[in-house]
């Protein structure tokens, strides 16, 4: 059997973990067999040579370039001015957009082009024309209204405004529930017959006469003389001349045939 010489450290038995930990900690007083290793590790952490410090100027230049260079004031002012101008531009754009929207809305309100609720709101706020009543059917232009239906307004815009003390029939009906005294104009007015005797029946009593009910939406209920029953002044001749109705004592002078565009004067009933 060959006798192979072995190094004392070849099997590793001569090196303990304690020695290794001591070596890593930089201790020099280790087992004699590990002294060369301790010398190697000491050489690894020896004092730096000049060559290893040669790059200091380059590193310092980079450090100076990155950290010491101050921000010019001119740039700072410019950036602040830029922010201010951007804010002003945004504010101006917002103001212009708001002006356009409000102006368009006001124009539409005065042209009576808005939906009824919005139109009523505009009527309250900026005095735009009131929205036409939606609860009462509006007969077509030139057609007779069916007797027995509410025909107080007809298609004539000039007569469209109820003669309520309040301009708001809904509020009025809510405010005086159960009065039911109004001449509601339930079609008793012989609409279209040329008589113009609207409001003869006390047809409104049935609507607003619910004591204490006060339901909103009872349009026309109350004391207002809702409609004058003139009917459609533009109706064909077989229903009579609308001017004749006016002569019979209708409270308002009939509008001209183009009176759809005319605005009636506000009437308040004492």
């Amino acid at each position: 059997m060959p006798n192979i010489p072995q190094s004392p450290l070849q099997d590793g038995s001569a090196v303990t973990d304690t020695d290794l930990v001591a070596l890593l900690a930089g201790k020099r007083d280790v087992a004699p067999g590990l002294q060369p290793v301790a010398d190697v590790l000491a050489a690894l952490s020896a004092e730096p040579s000049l060559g290893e410090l040669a790059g200091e100027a380059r590193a310092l230049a980079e450090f100076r370039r990155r950290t010491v260079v101050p921000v010019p004031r001119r740039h700072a002012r410019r950036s602040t001015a830029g922010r201010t101008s951007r804010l002003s531009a945004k504010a101006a754009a917002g103001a212009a957009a708001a002006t356009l929207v409000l102006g368009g809305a006001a124009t539409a309100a005065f042209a009576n082009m808005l939906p009824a609720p919005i139109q009523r709101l505009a009527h309250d706020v900026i005095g735009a024309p009131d929205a036409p009543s939606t609860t009462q059917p509006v007969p077509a232009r030139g057609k007779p209204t069916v007797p027995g239906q509410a025909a107080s307004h007809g298609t004539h815009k000039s007569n469209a405004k109820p003669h309520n003390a309040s301009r708001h029939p809904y509020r009025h009906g809510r405010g005086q529930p159960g009065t039911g005294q109004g001449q509601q104009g339930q079609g008793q007015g012989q609409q279209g017959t040329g008589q113009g005797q609207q409001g003869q029946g006390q047809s409104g009593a049935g609507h607003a006469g619910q004591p204490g009910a006060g339901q909103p939406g009872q349009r026309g209920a109350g004391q207002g003389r809702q409609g004058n029953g003139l009917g459609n002044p533009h109706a064909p001749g077989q229903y009579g001349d609308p001017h004749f109705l006016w002569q019979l004592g209708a409270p308002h002078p009939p509008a001209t045939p183009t009176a759809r565009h005319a605005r009636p004067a506000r009437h308040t009933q004492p």
Partner: protein
Amino acid sequence: MINEEFASLLAAAQRGSEPAFSRLWRDVNPALLRYLRVIAPGAEEDLAAETWVQVVRGLRSFRGDEQAWRAWLFTTARRRAIDLARHRSRRPEAPLDDVAVAQLPRTEDSAEVALEHLSTAAAITLVSGLPRLQAEVILLRVVAGLDTESVARLLTKSPGAVRVAAHRGLRRLAQLTADTGVTL
């Protein structure tokens, strides 16, 4: 290691003090070069410079003690070295007459070189003959002064694996020096 003065030096360097930064640089750069000489032989100077550029960029936002500071530096350097190795693998450039000493075959020749030069460079050459992980662990523990946990995080290994690699590397180093009769 700077130890007690480190916090004040770092704060001064973050405020722009050149002497403070110079002191930090002088403390770490030699160890950085020795480490890079093992893991990226021939490119240690450039890699160290790139590392410091990156460190200077992030200096103001750095928070930590000296261990964290050194770990940050060596982690940055190691990533630079890995990037360089990838770049070299894609575009290999190896003139036959300009091969670095550390890239030569490292069996007993490294020990012979160490015998001739009892210096730091010789010790680095001797450690370069170890397997890569063992050499890195020994350098990071001894040269960089990092503890086991910091080395484990840097190398993305477990602390146990780092301890095993360190012990194996030291045993291997002891064996090399015993075989060749190296006495530094």
